[in-house]
């Protein structure tokens, strides 16, 4: 498991001296398959599709959870079975609509972040902020320009906060 990335620092310097061979493993350049496997994750399309799918899954879960909570059952005479069926349909409907929203959100966010990071060639919070702005604006574009601006700013702030919370950057 001594895999190293094809980073600029790895000069492929062969093995260590025999006195250190027990503690330090020699540097091993990655094979072509390893590089291809890692390059798959560098592709913007693959990343955004995977993010969209994950967003869809999250939306389904959220829809199930909140759909079960939100049940104004009308005061009709329904047996227990009918109530269960009604609640289940409501949960399903809500989870599908949530899944679509979250999938689109994840797709747009991931695609925007990937494109911006590749163009800037830097790993920063600015990428997250720009991607959040694009996503928020795209989701709120139907409400007019003011709603787009507010959505952009709000979602950018939210995504930067989440980023700092998970502390991915230094």
């Amino acid at each position, binding site marked *: 498991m001594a895999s190293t990335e094809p980073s600029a620092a790895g000069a492929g310097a062969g093995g260590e001296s025999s006195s250190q061979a027990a503690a330090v493993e020699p540097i091993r350049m990655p094979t072509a398959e390893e590089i291809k496997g890692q390059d798959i994750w*560098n592709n913007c399309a693959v990343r955004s599709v995977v993010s969209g799918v994950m967003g869809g899954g999250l939306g389904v879960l959220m829809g199930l959870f909140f759909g079960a909570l939100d049940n104004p059952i009308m005061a009709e005479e329904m047996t227990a079975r009918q109530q269960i069926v009604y609640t289940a349909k409501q949960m399903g409907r809500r989870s599908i609509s949530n899944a679509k929203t979250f999938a689109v959100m994840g797709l747009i966010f991931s695609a925007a972040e990937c494109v911006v990071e590749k163009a800037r060639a*830097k790993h920063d919070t600015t990428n997250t902020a720009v991607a959040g702005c694009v996503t928020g604006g795209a989701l709120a574009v139907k409400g007019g320009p003011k709603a787009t601006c507010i959505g952009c700013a709000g979602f950018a702030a939210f995504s930067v906060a989440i980023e700092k919370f998970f502390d991915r950057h*230094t």
Partner: protein
Amino acid sequence: MAAKGGASNFEKEQMFGMAEKEMEYRVDLFNRLTQTCFEKCIEKRYKEAELNMGENSCIDRCVSKYWQVSLLIPFLFADSFYAYSIA
């Protein structure tokens, strides 16, 4: 290039010397390339061993430009050298 036995020995040594110099030049170029692009593209504080996408694209561009420059400059140098020796 007379095909004498003694001269070809000398030529072989010459070729070995040139190949050695060429190899040293290549190794030096590689070391400088990795040093330059590492210092330019990779930030000093990091939390993971994997290369980010930004660093990846930075390294791609850095290596490509360095390589182009290293191919271009000997060409320009040779031109000016000949012009200098003629003048």
